[in-house]
């Protein structure tokens, strides 16, 4: 094969990549206050400073981290259990996989829709408890939505992210278990021990990648926190959206500055992820397909 083919092969993705980077750069410039349409021309950092200094920023950041970290960690753990359940009960194909794909295909807006109708104090869960006599009035049902504990949002994210983690890491874990998992069991390791010592560590790359994807997504997503979240403090993406729909168009740089901060923190997370996974790779030695 001649030298040129790789460059031909990657041409489309590079073109799209350049377009993407140009778009992001252009977006970031707006966050420094350069929007000629609203005759804002002088670049300055004070939009960022003003956003960071605003009293609600730290609370928003805390809430957003609280939501994304907890939901992603829980999703990674439950997702791994789900993958193990699929692999060990031999359901790596067939109907259950279609059901899991169904969860992936439903967008977050629809998840918000049924989350409210299930988890609200007037929702189905509350009515069930009422019918069973466990609670007497709507007020007794714990407040899952619109509160600081963000349980409603986290449950909403879990509903979509647990199946995603499973779908993402299934093929790798299945192949590992079929060969190395079998060998471990044959060498005297119980199914649990062979899972913990062999199958899980070797499936980590896929699980970790899925974790990064859901972490960065839930950190930057706006749908669920807006519809299910507390009024104060709002999650960062919701705050950014409120700034974005602010009628005074010259408010736009604040929205873009907030988005810029979201981007910065997201890339920080990605950076930490690559550091950890590379360091582990160097120490652990990249494993070849068994």
């Amino acid at each position, binding site marked *: 094969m001649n030298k040129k083919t790789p460059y031909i092969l990657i041409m489309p993705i590079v073109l799209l990549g350049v377009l993407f980077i140009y778009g992001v750069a252009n977006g970031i410039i707006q966050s420094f206050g350069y929007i000629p349409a609203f005759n804002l021309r002088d670049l300055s950092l004070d939009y960022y400073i003003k956003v960071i200094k605003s009293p609600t920023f730290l609370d928003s950041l805390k809430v957003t981290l609280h939501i994304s970290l907890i939901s992603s960690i829980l999703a990674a753990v439950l997702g791994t259990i789900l993958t193990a359940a699929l692999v060990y009960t031999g359901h790596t194909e067939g109907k259950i996989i279609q059901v899991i794909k169904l969860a992936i295909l439903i967008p977050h807006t629809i998840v918000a829709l049924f989350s409210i109708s299930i988890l609200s104090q007037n929702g189905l869960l509350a009515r069930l408890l009422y019918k069973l006599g466990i609670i007497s009035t709507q007020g007794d049902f714990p407040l899952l939505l619109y509160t600081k504990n963000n349980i409603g949002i986290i449950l909403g994210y879990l509903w979509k992210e647990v199946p995603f983690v499973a779908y993402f890491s299934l093929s790798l874990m299945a192949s590992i278990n079929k*060969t*190395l998992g*079998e*060998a*471990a*069991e*044959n*060498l*005297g*390791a*119980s*199914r649990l*021990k*062979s899972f913990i*010592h*062999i199958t899980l*560590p*070797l499936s980590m790359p896929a699980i970790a990648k899925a974790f990064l994807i859901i972490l960065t997504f839930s950190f930057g997503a706006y749908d669920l926190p807006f519809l299910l979240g507390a009024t104060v403090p709002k999650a960062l993406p919701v705050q950014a959206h409120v700034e974005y729909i602010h009628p005074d168009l010259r408010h736009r740089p604040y929205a873009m500055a907030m988005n810029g901060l979201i981007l910065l923190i997201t890339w920080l997370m990605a950076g930490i992820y690559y550091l950890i996974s590379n360091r582990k790779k160097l120490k*652990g*030695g990249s*494993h*070849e397909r*068994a």
Partner: protein
Amino acid sequence: MELELKNISVTLSKKEILKSINLRVEDGEFISLLGASGCGKSTLLKTIAGIIKQREGSILLGGKALDKVPPHKRRTVIVFQDFRLFPHMTVAENISFPLKMLGLHKDKCRERAVELLKKVKLEGFKDRHVDEISGGQKQRVVLARALAAEPVVLLLDEPFSSLDINLRKDMRELVLDLQKEYKITTILVTHDKEEALTMSDRIAFMHNGEILQYDTPENIFKNPVNTIVADYFAEGTYISGEIKGNRFISRFFNVDINRDDGKYKCLIRPSALKVNKAEDGKFQVVAKIYQGDNYLLKINKINSSLKLESILNEPLDIKEGDKVSIELDKDKLIFIPE
């Protein structure tokens, strides 16, 4: 511990792979499952180890039934053909993995691992990474790992097939020494007849899901139970005839042999035929093929359809086209009942 299989049969995705296998392996015995690929020998191995569940029949180890025992408690350790070393562990960690599973203390594991490494002549490879070592070394690590699991039965699934010839010889010796030293009941699955003949106390010859013959290497070589077994070991020409009163009579020759009467097929292997130059010989040399340390002579009986082959060791000056006479070595003839 002696192992016994009682009419084990296995079907995988609707195809019957093993048809009511009966096999008994004495304690410390080294047997091999010999047969062409696809005859079900690997499946039998995995069934013994519990990885595959048999449809019927039961497996007894030291008299106790194994069917209810989960694979990781059977101590029936397999050495797989594709090694299956744990990539995220060093050589020492791989070897001490089974010990860790048995709950031994860390230092005890390391110590045992080093000891086993010495046994497989891999001192100093302790902290090497598994993908930094060669095929032969990998095979030895896998063997050490298997021994670390203190197997009651050692199952070898064509372990040497991916090694080159001379490496294979040392590994065979190593496996035999270790097996003798630890006196482990061992089953070797192989399609290489020489491996089976040289290593095992007894050979179970398998053919599409059944054991055709289970006997010492000599018997199986000398008196195969049917043509399939016979041909597997060494090709030759068949002459059918009949034995009456300890005398085999056939169209081409007769010979005295004390076997009970009945119709028989006589297999004449090249090693059983001696040839010497004779002007008035009834046979003619058709081809002379050089095979390194001997020659293979192909000879036809003049105006007859009989074709025979012979091995010529000393450099006799027989050329193609010469007439020769033949001499049958009586005790190398094989008689197979029809």
